[in-house]
């Protein structure tokens, strides 16, 4: 059985093209769906574009959402590098968000920095648990991360934020419940007036470049990919595979935790009582559509971010914003079966379809 990356992405030899194709196809499908339901699809898409790109405000919204999606997507992509399927980005993101919200309440110097670090550490620990279970106890990471997600969701939302860490006075009313607000010094600065664009966007971009450099240009990054390509072979050539897996999971969790910190320190400024992010699950979509690479993930994060920012405008033509999620799901469905694309891609390149390699 070939390794995870080969199984998922093998036929799409060119991840960036695959990502672009899947995104275009899913947009076309949803365009058709709107048109078929008797609504004005061109007007809807014009509204969508206006909501995502027209002016400082919309561009800022797109950037804010892109940043969170990018970090969550990188989290999943980093785990792919060592051959692990981290479905737990949501849980890691939630712990990161909580850590940022709690540390951000304190009046200490450099509180923003400490909050970000705490978020990364919290996400990292939660992911390490899955890495440890995989390496030491042989528990498949898909199952353990799914379970850990729900442990985190229920513990944080149903207990910690509602009970021990609830802001004083935020009692029965869910709408105001949540933790106390973080101090203004812990807010991510917003350099442009009239736009919610914050420093988190630039942080996410810098991290993306760093992750790309690390995984493709360093010895350790090479070792990670070697473990992902074949654990036994890597071990035979002297790479401690178990350690590398745990390291990658730690980084993966840290990135998801930072995504959570961006949500809290950039937008919410507290851990709200009702906080249904789903960004961790979206991160899986970003990494899958992006072909597990940094640039493909960045492209996917940008398109999905723009879709979410623009989708709020769709209500004007009577289309619910869940349209953005629908398009995203379709894109994943399309990349899920790269073999559908294979003949098409091959034809685009002007040669006949290669014979698919056997899976067994």
């Amino acid at each position: 059985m070939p390794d995870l990356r080969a199984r998922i992405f093998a036929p799409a030899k060119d991840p960036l093209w695959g990502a672009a194709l899947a995104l275009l196809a899913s947009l076309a499908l949803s365009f058709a769906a709107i048109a078929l339901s008797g609504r004005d699809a061109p007007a809807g898409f014009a509204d969508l574009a206006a909501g995502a790109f027209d002016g400082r405000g919309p561009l800022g919204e797109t950037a804010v959402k892109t940043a969170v999606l990018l970090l969550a997507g990188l989290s999943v992509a980093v785990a792919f590098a060592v051959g692990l399927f981290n479905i737990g980005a949501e849980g890691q993101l939630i712990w990161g968000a909580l850590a940022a919200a709690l540390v951000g309440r304190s009046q200490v110097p450099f509180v923003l920095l400490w909050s970000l670090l705490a978020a990364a550490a919290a996400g990292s620990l939660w992911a390490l648990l899955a890495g440890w279970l995989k390496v030491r106890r042989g528990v498949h990471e898909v199952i353990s991360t799914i379970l850990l997600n729900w442990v985190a969701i229920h513990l944080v939302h149903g207990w910690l934020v509602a009970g021990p860490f609830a802001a004083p006075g935020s009692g029965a009313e869910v709408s105001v419940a949540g933790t106390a607000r973080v101090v203004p010094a812990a807010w991510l600065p917003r350099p442009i007036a009239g736009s919610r664009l914050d420093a988190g966007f630039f942080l996410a971009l810098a991290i993306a470049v760093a992750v790309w450099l690390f995984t493709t240009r360093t010895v350790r990054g090479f070792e990670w990919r070697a473990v992902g390509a074949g654990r036994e072979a890597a071990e035979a050539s002297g790479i401690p595979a178990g350690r590398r897996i745990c390291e990658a999971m730690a980084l993966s969790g840290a990135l998801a935790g930072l995504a959570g910190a961006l949500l809290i320190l950039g937008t919410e400024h507290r851990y709200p009582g009702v906080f249904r992010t789903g960004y961790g699950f979206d991160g899986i979509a970003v990494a899958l559509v992006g072909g597990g690479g940094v640039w493909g993930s960045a492209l996917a994060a940008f398109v999905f971010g723009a879709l979410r920012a623009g989708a709020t405008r769709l209500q004007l033509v009577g289309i619910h914003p869940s349209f953005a999620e629908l398009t995203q799901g379709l894109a994943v469905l399309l990349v899920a079966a790269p073999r559908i694309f294979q003949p098409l891609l091959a034809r685009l390149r002007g040669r006949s379809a290669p014979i698919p390699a056997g899976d067994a």
Partner: protein
Amino acid sequence: MNLILDFAPPLVFAALGGVLSERAGVVNIGLEGMMRFGAFAAAAGAIFTGSPWLGLACGALAGAGAAAVHALLSLRFRADQVVSGIALNLVALGLVTYLLQAMFGSPGVSPEAPALPRDRFGHSALAYAALLAPLLFHVWLRWTPSGLRVRAVGEHPRAAATLGVRVLPLRALCVLGSGVLAGVGGATLSVGLLGQFDSRMPAGQGFMALAAVVFGGWTPLGAAAAAFFFAAGDALQRQLSFSLHAADLRLEGIFLALPYALTLAVLALGIGRARAPAADGVPYDPEG
């Protein structure tokens, strides 16, 4: 006890669906999405036809339809089974909300749907079906030739193939059956319990069913027992917060997290030697 018979059936049906698919060697992360389609289609079907039973049938069909996509992607196009399941969940999340808004004009809840009739103890027929189904499933899987074939393609598909079992069609059939069961589980939530569809359904129940499958060691009786156990925990939690005014303690989250934490502990400690079917999640290539 009454509460347990209310909470357990959706979990039991979905968990049995998970067992069916995974014993045939196809990982089913898409249970949550299949339940969501089932819950919505059941409510919509019941509203349009006026009959909750036809609604239930719609729910089962919708679950099967969603499962057909999973089967097509993972078996015909040999997509990764985990990815295909995740894609299904994502599509279910967006598409059902979209349809809810398009058909009933509200993104929150559907109008009231006719609910299944209840007996004098307040249970619908589905509650009793949930008690009976695991036993029938167990007998079928364990003692019949077709049950043996299903287990064979999940443990060693190539060996089954050499004995003349057509692996991929049988796996596809099991995935479809899994979708029917998950769809019925979802329908139990909407036309069985609440009498309408809520856009938050099934609120993680599909994943809890998945935990029950693992906790129960991939067996029908084990998974059903785990589902009842989880439902009992939920019922206990509600009783406690009702009678002790423990709502102030905010223990709800701890109780809800317990099933998942316990399942993790069982896996980590290797209690009971629970083991996934050998070929679970491994794509089968008839020519390879």
